[in-house]
């Protein structure tokens, strides 16, 4: 549980679910989560992605290139649209800085700013900052089995282990054979549904199953949600050390 959005983690991390031994039909929620977790992450990766944000007044496309080291350090640069081109973000552990070329300022994103939307999408900075390793944040229980987008899935009920967490509970649909999160609902402490995620396309890269097309929807927000497309992924890539420093933001 913890994985705020697999989202950027699943997305950006663009998850890999590899050819690992299958779990028995009676596997526990914790075992399934660990399996997903184990197969989802690789050490270093470079990802090029697009977010198509369907707002009330039309759609916008935001293109990004990200360099990710482990799951806690990410350097991202926005490539489009023109207004946002050159904007960079650096996430180091629990800190997040952004750099905008128009102001030539590096700003620490903290406090309530973390609740802001990332580029107007259905994802927030808080989502990006959450530990993507769900077993660290949630306890899991298999509640049922369902078929989602033609794949047989376990349905997991995830309950937060900590108080100070954005989503108190989640319902996750996990592909039984690929260990890919195919669908997820995120809930507030009150039980109110806050966000949904649906994987629309999964592809296999270097023995990892990667969610290639995902639809995120902030239920409290008008509009048609945010489609996330992974255009390219290089796993176990060599990434220069300097990228994970604030100095790299202004370069």
């Amino acid at each position: 549980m913890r994985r705020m959005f697999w989202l950027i983690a699943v997305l950006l991390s663009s998850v890999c679910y590899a050819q690992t031994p299958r779990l028995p039909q009676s596997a526990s929620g914790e075992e399934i989560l660990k399996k997903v977790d184990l197969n989802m992450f690789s050490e270093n990766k470079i990802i090029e992605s697009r977010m198509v944000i369907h707002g009330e007044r039309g759609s916008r496309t935001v293109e990004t290139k990200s360099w990710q080291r482990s799951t806690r350090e990410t350097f991202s640069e926005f490539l489009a649209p023109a207004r946002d081109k050159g904007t960079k973000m650096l996430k180091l552990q629990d800190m997040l800085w952004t750099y905008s070329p128009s102001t030539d300022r590096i700003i620490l994103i903290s406090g309530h700013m973390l609740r802001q939307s990332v580029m107007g999408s259905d994802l927030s900075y808080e989502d990006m900052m959450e530990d993507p390793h769900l077993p660290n944040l949630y306890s899991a229980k298999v509640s049922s089995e369902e078929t989602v987008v033609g794949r047989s899935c376990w349905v997991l009920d995830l309950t937060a282990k900590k108080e100070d967490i954005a989503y108190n509970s989640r319902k996750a649909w996990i592909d039984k054979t690929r260990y890919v999160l195919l669908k997820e609902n995120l809930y507030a402490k009150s039980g109110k549904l806050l966000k949904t995620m649906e994987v629309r396309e999964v592809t296999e890269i270097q023995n990892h199953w990667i969610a290639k097309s995902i639809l995120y929807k902030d239920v409290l927000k008008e509009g048609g949600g945010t489609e996330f497309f992974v255009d390219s992924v290089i796993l176990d890539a060599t990434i220069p050390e300097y990228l994970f420093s604030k100095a790299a933001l202004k370069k």
Partner: protein
Amino acid sequence: MIEFLFKGLVRDRSRSLFPVLIVAAGVMLTVFLQSWLNGALSSLIQSTAHYRTGHVCVMTRAYNEKADQLPNDLALLGIDTLLTTLRGQYPDLFWTPRITFGGLLDIPDEKGETKEQAPVSGMGVDLLASDSPEWKVLNIRPALVQGHLPKQQGEILIAEALAGKLHIQPGQKVTLISSTMYGSMTYYNFTIAGTVRFGVAPMDRSAIIADLNDIQQALDMQHGAGEIVGFFHDDLYHEDRANVITEDFNTRSSKSSDKFSPIMGTLRTVSGLADYLDFASSFSGIILTVFVVVMSIVLWNAGLTGSLRRYGEIGLRLAIGEETGHVYRSMMVESLFIGIAGSIAGTAIGVAIAYYLQVHGFDIGSMTKNSTMMISDVIRAQVEPSTFAIGFLPGILATFLGAAISGIGIYKRQTSQLFKELET
């Protein structure tokens, strides 16, 4: 007869002084409260109009539904055409676009990293046009405390208190962090031109004033504005005219099926002050009613006291053949004199006090420092023609009623007992 009664009142102060003092005190209180309330209400309406809603306000239907959240993602677009339409169709008002937004003001240190941050509520208004009405509407020139007025794009004014809190001075660079109309976080550099103090708590707490073009760029709102506000040329809110204009505009231009079509609202409806304004406007009537009732009771009592003192006089008048009705009517006429005299005295004193407070005002800043209502820190009474007249109705009516009730005792005197009473 009238002269006779008048002389009686003047020469016998025991009959007139106490009632006149009571009436004068009551009338003074009424006059003062009415002018004070007028002043407070006018101040609230004026500040709300100037700093928030205008006398009328045009926005999209969707924006109108969430106006308290400043939903700039639902803002008006293509405002040039709409402005031309409004100026052509409704020349009774002048129109100006505004963007109201929230955000953080980030103060960099010498390395360009964040030194201080504070939440701000900002307004993007037409600051740089030579004929912009905003200078007058927002009272910007008199509000300037330090620095100078913005002369070019990229310059802003910030609240003096905010500048003090952030330890910043005119000339310093700051960065606004906010959201574009598409929801992206946005950063925009400004130079502080000057600091301002408007004397309106919500503005003085955390306001920044920037040019509309700058804010359109910062929030990615080209040719957009959250609202277009309209003001009557005499700067007074004419509710009836505002209602007519609003209804006409909405009939012509607003489509209920399109949430981005423009809709016009009046200060009363847009500000959310409708209930408050209703209560405040009926408050004068409440004051007058309470005054009449209370004063009538007091003067009734005073009349009874006077009747006791004049028990012998009235008995004698009845004994020598004066009709009961005549005695009663003469007391009514006396009460009229007392009411007029008391009302004149009370009005004079009340107007004098009100005028003093109109000129000097009363600082309620310590009570409004956390207020979100657009009300001035200094409340002034407002003396207007009705102030001179408003005390006469309750002043005379209360005296009349008091005398009428207490005078009923005259009819209860037994004529057969009068001489016996006089003998004792």
